[in-house]
């Protein structure tokens, strides 16, 4: 089981020591044009989680490829580039410019910008034609049937799934006004874990694709639970904010959690993973 960061939760150039603990670094989402992002306040703490509305702040495709990617390569950590956009052609054009990275993650689910008009499957299909790099589709658990979306992107050529993104939410300040300037934001942290485990579980059963599970992972035990639901790898997000040493810590804890569960590796529990709905139908 590899340990990655959730896209947008780490700047490897600002904190290379943190990025070097990871098995792969996932960039903040790159869009065709530069984006300054949303006005502050952009973050707010909630019960068991936090909201963010950063708004895909990024230097844009051209500067990312010319300036950022070469510096990221110098870190010596395998790279995943998160790609975003506002139509299938946006995504595909960025994909066609990428080379010498480990994988592409297609951000099909940012809660803090207006959504792309094209469907997730259309975007994946366009990117499939544009690159031979492994394509991971990052989906939202806000969809009424995330397994259906997973099947559609699998059919369109996705090599894997990243599950889940933040969920759109709102928090109010003491004056009963939204705590974020944008109004709503993406909820992350502990509160997401049960939702993410369910999404991983049903998408694993629906597609069998490799899954990077994320959403509220704070410990090795959490990571092992994602494996038990079908995740091959995991990503850390909000926990990095309070503990930049989390990747190394979670890796150590994961080994201990495996020992406690009586398995050699997380793969051993993944092979037994079934969707909770299926599990329920199995006669006792």
């Amino acid at each position, binding site marked *: 089981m590899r340990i990655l960061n959730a896209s*947008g*939760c*780490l*700047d490897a150039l*600002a*904190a290379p*020591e*943190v990025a070097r*603990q990871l098995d792969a670094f996932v960039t*903040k989402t790159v869009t065709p044009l530069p984006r*300054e*992002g949303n*006005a*502050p*306040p*952009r*973050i*707010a*703490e*909630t019960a*068991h*989680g*936090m*909201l*963010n509305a*950063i708004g895909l*702040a990024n230097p844009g495709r051209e500067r990312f490829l010319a300036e950022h990617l070469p510096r990221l390569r110098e870190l010596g950590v395998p790279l995943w580039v998160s790609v975003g956009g506002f139509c299938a052609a946006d995504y595909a054009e960025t994909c066609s410019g990428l080379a010498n990275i480990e994988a592409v993650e297609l951000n099909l689910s940012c809660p803090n910008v207006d959504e792309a008009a094209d469907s997730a499957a259309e975007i994946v299909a366009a990117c499939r034609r544009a690159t031979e790099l492994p394509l991971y589709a990052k989906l939202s658990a806000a969809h009424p049937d995330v397994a259906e979306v997973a099947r559609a992107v699998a059919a369109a050529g996705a090599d894997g799934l990243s599950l889940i993104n933040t969920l759109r939410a709102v*928090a*109010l*300040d003491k004056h009963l006004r939204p*705590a974020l*300037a944008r109004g709503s934001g993406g909820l992350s*942290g*502990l509160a997401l874990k049960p939702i993410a485990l369910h999404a991983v579980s049903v998408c694993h059963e629906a597609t069998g694709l490799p899954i990077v599970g994320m959403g509220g992972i704070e410990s090795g035990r959490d990571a092992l639970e994602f494996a038990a639901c079908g995740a091959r790898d995991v990503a850390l997000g*909000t926990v*990095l*904010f*309070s*503990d*930049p*040493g989390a990747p*190394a*810590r979670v890796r150590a804890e994961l080994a201990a959690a495996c020992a406690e569960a009586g398995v050699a590796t997380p793969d051993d529990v993944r092979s037994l993973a079934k969707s909770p709905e299926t599990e329920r139908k199995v006669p006792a």
Partner: protein
Amino acid sequence: MPSSVSPSRHRVTGSEWVGPYTLLRLERGELEPGAPGQFFMLEAPGRLLPRPFSLCLAPPGELAFLVDPIGPGTEALCALGPGDEIHVLGPLGHGYRLDVERPLLVGGGIGIAPLPYLAEQLGGSPPALLGFRSDEHAEAAALLPGSEVVVDPVLVTELIEPGYDVMACGPEPMLHAVAALCPTAQLAWEARMACGYGACYGCVVEIDGALKRLCLEGPVLDAARVTKVRASNKLLQGAEA
């Protein structure tokens, strides 16, 4: 990033009232105190995210932080007692440049926090002007013996004389007023931060005309660099959900 990537655990050695604020003392352990104006992320017990605080005092073997209990995180920090332990990461960001000829320290309210350590590092008892909203808050001026103190409605900016290298920390309106009076001042700003090391992109302020992360660029900035702090970017402590 500091030399250790992981936050370290530090025992509380003392906690005392200073007016309405709490001076929280921690065992220093392996942490460096850093430059005045740099900050540390302190675990807020029972909360998801740590909170940023500049160092107030660096007694031998200790680090001391001034905390204003105005939200659940800061209240939890003020409730800590000797023997309790919290995680600490730091020092982070950029502090004050100390190569100034005629320093004048200017602080407003909880913004006086970094000034005692700044005065110590400058040496020679630099003059200080402190403004508070009430007599009770003004009791915190005891942290900077010899300082000149004003209380609302008098403003510190009314007492700043020309010819000084102003080093200020305080609420945004005060910092903007100081910047207008003293274009060469060094100002310590504040913003909501989740991480303190550039990961969360939450603490942006308009710096050099663009939204940039305060934790990496500041928190101490030359007055001319902050073109505008968006009025909505309230202090972290006052903005807790």
